[in-house]
């Protein structure tokens, strides 16, 4: 459940934004940074503190693709699906990752170690195609390089910068 330390951090985020309804996106960003994702329990709690209907908070969280409503895997691979990446062939790379690690885009592996998510554009299009692994960006990505990096990250208890 919501342990004290993280609860304290969330309280600080809420307070920094003056418990304002207009800062709901910032508060959800803060909450996601603290908890990793936004489950219903957390959204309901935020709604309560801000004195908003839970439906409104849930509605905002589901509208924006940046908010994660399910627990992501321990390691997260994000594929950029922007136009430049698409044109430069990100699709075959995603398909190769799906096949190699037995998961589907948007989902996680059974053991919860790896997720693959998609993003619309991270704005580094001159380096397309782009795959990021735990926030490390791999530009001009190829199947081989990406799979190698993922294996490295999965193979160790602590992910080293690749």
């Amino acid at each position, binding site marked *: 459940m919501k342990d004290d330390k993280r609860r304290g951090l969330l309280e600080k985020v809420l307070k920094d934004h003056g418990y304002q309804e207009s800062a709901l*996106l910032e508060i959800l960003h803060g909450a996601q940074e603290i908890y990793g994702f936004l489950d219903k329990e957390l959204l309901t709690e935020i709604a309560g503190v801000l004195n908003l209907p839970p439906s409104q908070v849930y509605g905002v969280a589901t*509208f924006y693709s940046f908010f994660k409503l399910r627990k992501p895997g321990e390691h997260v691979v994000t594929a950029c699906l*922007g136009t430049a990446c698409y044109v*430069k062939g990100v699709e075959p790379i995603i398909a190769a990752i799906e096949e190699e690690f037995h998961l589907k885009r948007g989902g996680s592996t059974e053991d919860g170690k790896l997720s693959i998510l998609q993003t*619309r*554009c991270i704005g580094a299009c001159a380096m397309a195609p782009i795959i990021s692994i735990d926030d490390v960006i791999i530009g001009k990505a190829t199947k081989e390089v990406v799979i190698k990096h993922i294996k490295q990250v999965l193979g160790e208890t602590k992910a080293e910068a690749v």
Partner: protein
Amino acid sequence: MGSPVKEMLYESGGFFKKQHRIVLRNAGKIDPNRIQDYIAMGGYTALVKCLSSMTPPGIITEILSSGLRGRGGAGFPTGQKWRLVAQANNSPKYIVANLDEGDPGVYANRSIAEADPHAIIEGMLIAAYATGAEKGYIYIRKEYPLAIQTLQKAIDQAKAMSLLGDNILETPLKFDLTLRFGAGAFVAGEETAILASVEGRRAMPRPRPPYPANSGLWQKPTLIQNIETLTNIPLIIQNSAAWFSKTGTPKCTGTKCFSLTGKVKNPGLIEVPMGITLREVVFDIGGGIPDGKKFKAALIGGPSGGCLPEHLLEVPIDYDSLTKVGAIMGSGGIVVLDQDSCMVDTARYFTEFCVDESCGRCTPCRAGLPRMLEIFQKITHGQGEFSDLAVLEKSCHFIREASLCGLGQTAPNPVLTTLRYFKSEYLHHIENKECEAGVCFKTRDEDEPK
């Protein structure tokens, strides 16, 4: 040790020769984390000039006569927008700087924020003085962590030097600036949707009128401005409107930043005078198509833009010429495609994007775009019929005419332009069940049992 890439050297022409860097004047030259660097380059002198020797109506007249038009895509004259907000008699007034840049393949605004954040702040301050706004928001994508960090630092430094807050530079001017984070919604770039998002709600557009200039954030007069537009402001004030309008074409003054990507030798962020031809951008600046392949099309304006073929390479890049050929300026993305790209698949890709990003508020966009996507799935899986093309085209016109906001109104552009300029590819897919670029029909093979 490597050697420098010859084509990228300034002296050898190529990438830089045809560029005209006004908006990107300081990019790469100053340390964006030091306000002193910006000031040393003449930064904030335009603000001082406004406060010491210009009246708000005088500033608006200057911006009007510069001919500056909004760089966010629609090309509305900036001075007119300012005048509307200045004349609105309701307070407080707000300014929202749009750094949502949701177009995939576009990153000019991110680069400006990361390289020259104070130019944005100065542009906003001048707008605040001219329109009487007291509070500003920069709405920025959360996908841009470095830009967020750089801007926040710049805001803090400006505050410390009394360039933000109360009594700016010991004058009665008062302006407060806060960052607001987007969360991955393309539609949030639409001007009424961005307002909803800044207010902490779902980014869904609403009908206009009332226009944001009269009833924007919390029903108060609001100026919504693109980052590139704002960055132009200090220069117009410093150097005069006449100086600014010398660049570009008579109807489209100044420069435009483009993110040049896709199949070109030199991809990157470029800034060119309005009126430059597409050919110059793709071949002189971009260096042409790599690996000896053939140019097929240039996508201008992102998912709401158009796909232009080779015979339109001479089209000058300005708002009106692009609209005439079915594309739009948009927020400044040019993606170059070569023979390996399929135009049917490209149109399908953009349609899918717009289906995902439709906010769901109005029926033509919410229900119409998925119908179009179904037709594309049929065609790219070998089940297309010739009659599908007529349905596709009719749907495009319906959605364009009947949608509430810019997303729906422009979503059919890639489909219409590919139907107009690359119809033979559609016909080939339907008749021969074959994709010459080798992109389509693949999923069908994978679906078959192994």
